[in-house]
């Protein structure tokens, strides 16, 4: 059957199906259909499609629209509907810009080395992080490949040459109310990427998307962006590029990003200390690729070795990086 090929004479058949013909034209078409059973069969199928599409429309349209959409329809000045915000404050678009500006000022003023670039358009890296976030955070059964219970294995695997090929401790965010769910390895345009997932509850999840910096000379600064209620913080640390994604306000996201960044710096500077005590290195270095952030220090070593509850100390360490 090569009927799929379109010829302008089909227009009349479509117009017939869609009731766009006057009575005389419709009669002409019906005469043609009586003589061409194949055309008649197509027309019947298309009519059935229309009926089914209307049924689908009725089914999809039957549900009452949510409050945020009713408000958006009813008035121009209505504040932007409440986006997902774990702390329950309503976030408006103007408020977001103010918050972003505040963050930018804070960063420029207070923290040396943190260059906020405002709300830049999302680069591919961020788009991939957001796509991964959306896909995996809604999985109830298989959100991750390796669960938090195997934290040490997760860390070894993702850091290995078969992983992202760069050493990274699994950040600990328990002190900020987020438990590790686990992680997985992903493919991206620019090579492998690691995805770590954290959650407060299964519907409140944050992901950290990490890959090796493609070009060491191009190091994008901290950028903040948002999409469909998700907000993203994107930055680089060492030879890694990171994107933290969650349905959080910028303030909360920033706190988490700072904690992660701080832990990474701490691990790096600890690793850079020339002669680490042999025993500590041996204890912490179990199976981590050589030359890596072995000495993640006692806090992170404790985090991996002890299945114990969240070490607030890890976060405290993260927030005040040793230099």
């Amino acid at each position, binding site marked *: 059957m090569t*009927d*799929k090929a*379109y010829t*302008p004479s*089909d*227009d009349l058949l*479509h*117009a017939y199906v*869609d009731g*766009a013909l006057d009575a005389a034209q419709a009669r002409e078409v019906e005469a043609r259909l009586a003589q061409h059973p194949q055309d008649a069969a*197509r027309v019947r*199928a*298309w009519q059935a*499609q*229309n009926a*089914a*599409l*209307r*049924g*689908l*429309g009725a*089914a*999809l*349209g039957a*549900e009452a*629209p*949510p409050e*945020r*959409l*009713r408000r*958006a*329809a*009813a*008035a*121009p000045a209505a504040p*932007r*509907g409440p986006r997902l915000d774990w702390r329950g404050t309503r976030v408006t678009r103007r408020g977001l810009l103010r918050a972003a500006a505040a963050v930018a000022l804070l960063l420029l003023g207070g923290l040396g080395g943190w260059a906020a670039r405002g709300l830049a*358009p*999302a680069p*591919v890296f961020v*788009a*991939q992080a*957001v*796509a991964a976030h*959306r*896909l995996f955070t*809604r999985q*109830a059964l298989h959100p991750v490949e390796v669960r938090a219970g195997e934290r040490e294995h997760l860390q070894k695997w993702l850091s290995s040459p078969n992983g992202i090929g760069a050493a990274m401790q699994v950040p600990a965010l328990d002190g900020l109310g987020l438990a590790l769910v686990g992680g997985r390895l992903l493919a991206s345009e620019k090579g492998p990427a690691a995805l770590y997932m954290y959650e407060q509850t*299964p*519907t409140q999840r944050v992901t950290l998307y990490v890959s090796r910096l493609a070009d060491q000379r191009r190091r994008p600064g901290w950028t903040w962006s948002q*999409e*469909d*209620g998700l907000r993203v913080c994107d930055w680089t640390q060492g030879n890694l590029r990171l994107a933290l994604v969650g349905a959080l306000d910028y303030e909360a996201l920033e706190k988490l990003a700072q904690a992660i960044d701080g832990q990474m710096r701490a691990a790096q500077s600890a690793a850079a200390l020339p002669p680490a005590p042999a025993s500590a290195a041996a204890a912490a270095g179990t199976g981590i690729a050589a030359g890596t952030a072995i000495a993640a220090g006692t806090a992170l070593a404790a985090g991996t070795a002890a299945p114990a509850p969240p070490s607030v100390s890890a976060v405290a360490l993260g927030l005040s990086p040793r230099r």
Partner: protein
Amino acid sequence: MDDLAWQMEQALPRLRRYARALVGDPTRADDIVQDCLERAWSRRHLFRPGSDLRAWLFTILHNVHANAARRYTTRPAHVPLTETTPAEPVRPRQADDLELGDLHEALGRLSEDQRQVLLLVGMEQLQYREVADVLGVPIGTVMSRLHRAREHLREELARESETPPRRPK
């Protein structure tokens, strides 16, 4: 402007169902509709009184969606009806939902260009001229996309009801 508010509320269920059928993912569909409504309010001076508000809203919706899709090319464009998020409990289903599910899935396998035209014509019952305006393409393009969409869908649905599947020549 109360009149406009009333009309927008009237149009809301159709915008929603169209967005839903177009992108699949309910949350994302609602986000697109919300952006559309906000943009419509902020540009209401561009609306010509007396013209069809619904077609105007579909135009805005389409632009919002196209912009979002351009920015996030890697996101799956269409999520089957069966995917649900933990936050979004499954709604009770009607008896004929299975068929609708098949249809929705088959729609997801059309190209987006074709899906748009088919939904605007078949589900929303816009006139061909209006569809051309909404999508910003010539009417001939609308007709050829409509044709291809209907024929693809006919094949898809036939394949589902008949076994074994026909191999393409």
